[in-house]
């Protein structure tokens, strides 16, 4: 098992955001976390990448307990994240943004850059443009490309479809599939449950800080409860 989250609790002040969440991600999988606003999806990702401290529980990565490891060291272990709201560096060019992803690595990076530009030809065309002047979809590409530049074993994606037009969402999901087929494990957080479940090997449904259901993606797609809650009920496909 690549990533194992064991019964974690996370608090914002006195308010419990996560109440004993357990998640497992195997090597090579795409796993989704779906759920409504405030269910704890983003907090879960932030806790895995080290941006939030946990109150109790354990996070194991590659069999190693990383619960107390600071965020910047988890990057080197192989946890890459595209954060909520993209987090593109607005005053850096596209290429400078991508190179920030390789901040901890030395040596020749041209091969890695090449690979990201091949996945996102759009970024190649605009590599000298400031990140802040790019459109939402392009910023999402930067955020994902930048996370790939950290050479992650597991890629954490926080709502990659947020604020994007349907055509672009489809494109981003195709690229996620491609990244996965090249050997990177993906843990995906999405409100766009339909698309996420189609793509995922397995998925967890989160509600107010707890896992209420976990099953293979396709199974959840046909689950009446999940359909009613997250896929627009019987109005869905």
């Amino acid at each position, binding site marked *: 098992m690549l990533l194992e989250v064991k019964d974690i609790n996370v608090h914002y002040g006195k308010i419990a955001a996560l109440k004993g969440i357990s998640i497992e991600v195997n090597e090579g999988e795409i796993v989704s976390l779906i759920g409504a606003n405030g269910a704890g999806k983003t907090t879960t990702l932030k806790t895995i990448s080290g941006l939030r401290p946990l109150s109790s529980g354990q996070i194991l990565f590659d069999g190693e307990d990383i619960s107390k490891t600071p965020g910047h060291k988890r*990057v080197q272990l192989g946890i890459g994240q595209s954060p909520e709201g993209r987090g593109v560096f607005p*005053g850096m060019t596209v290429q400078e943004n991508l*190179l*920030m992803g390789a901040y901890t690595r030395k040596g020749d990076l041209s091969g890695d850059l090449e690979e990201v530009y091949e996945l996102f030809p759009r970024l190649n065309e605009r590599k*000298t443009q*400031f990140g802040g002047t790019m*459109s*939402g979809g392009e910023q999402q590409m930067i955020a994902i490309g930048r996370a790939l530049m950290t050479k992650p074993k597991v890629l954490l994606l926080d709502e990659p479809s947020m604020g994007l037009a349907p055509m672009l969402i489809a494109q981003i999901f195709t690229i996620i599939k491609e990244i996965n087929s090249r050997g990177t494990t993906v843990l995906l957080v999405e409100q766009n449950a339909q698309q996420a479940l189609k793509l995922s090997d397995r998925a967890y449904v989160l509600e107010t800080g707890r896992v209420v259901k976990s099953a293979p993606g396709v199974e959840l797609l046909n689950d009446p409860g999940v359909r009613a809650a997250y896929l627009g009920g019987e109005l869905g496909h």
Partner: protein
Amino acid sequence: MKGDGVTAKRNAFHPVDRARDWWADAPQWQRYTVYLAAIVFALILPAPWIGSFMSPESDWTTVLFYPIGTYILLAVGLNIVVGQAGMLDLGFVAFFAIGGYTLAYFGTKHGLTFWATLVMGIVLAAVSGVILGAPTLRLRGDYLAIVTLGFGEIVRITANNTDEIGGARGITNVPHPEPLFGMEFLLDPAPYYYLIVAAIALVIVFSVRLHKSRVGRAWAAIREDEDAAELMGVPTFKFKLLAFAIGAMIGGLAGAIYASKAIFIEPNSFPFILSATILAAVVLGGAGNLPGVILGAFVIAWLPERFRFLAEYRILLFGAVLVLMMALRPEGLLPSRQRKAELHEGTGGMGTLAAEVPGPDSDDTSAEVGSK
């Protein structure tokens, strides 16, 4: 990372931008010519014929040392904290005070030489920067600003109430520096001016080197998005602490040089308003861009001196000019391109103060993409 056409070059019609592009590609000899010209300029600046216009009411060389030179030195230091690392520090005067008091105390009570006390002042300022930073740098934006504001006041009030360092009466007979290169440091302000010019030059070289290094890249990332920087593997806390310590060192250096000329220092030499003024200089000039910050500090220090004949009205005028300039050029007199892009995005404006708030342009993405 720069060069290879990877750095943005846009709007190359504006003269400032054109100068920037020229500078970015200028060959070594052209750069050294400019450095040499700057040094010659600094050396002839105290000339009386310049002074008769720049400062008709008071001694120009004295004005060049304080406030102008001292403000520039402080602003270059504060720029590392505010402009490069993006942390709002409202108590920068504390380090200025610590540098000054260290020199005055060890010079008068223990008879140590100027250079020894100067180094001690810098080290003590750095240590106090770390002591202040270690517990508080987990705070962001306005919370950090309030804590630093408090620190500035704590230092001043502590000095006011500590008899060992003179209490409210301060320290008198602070020793002058020892003669250097045949220059006697007595009442003539010229040698002090050259001393502070040397200090400014040194600090500028240091600051530019840092800016271009991995450290500078880490600071830029922290300033623009701290969480994202951590996700790139940047040890954000360590680098914020480093920025704080380096800024403090420069503040301490400025304080020590200031005290060595002033002969007499007291707690009220280091009021809160000085922190605010230096911050205004950094922001007015264009935080993060060194030429801008130096220009800003010069303007802030010089304007009230130039308009001394207006007596009490000059401060009113000064305030009006500040408001006007910030309204017309919110990004500063000479902003860096990077900073302009950050402000446009609505993040990173005053460091992390505004970082959590998306700008008006950051949410129209679906419409923009949909129309393509």
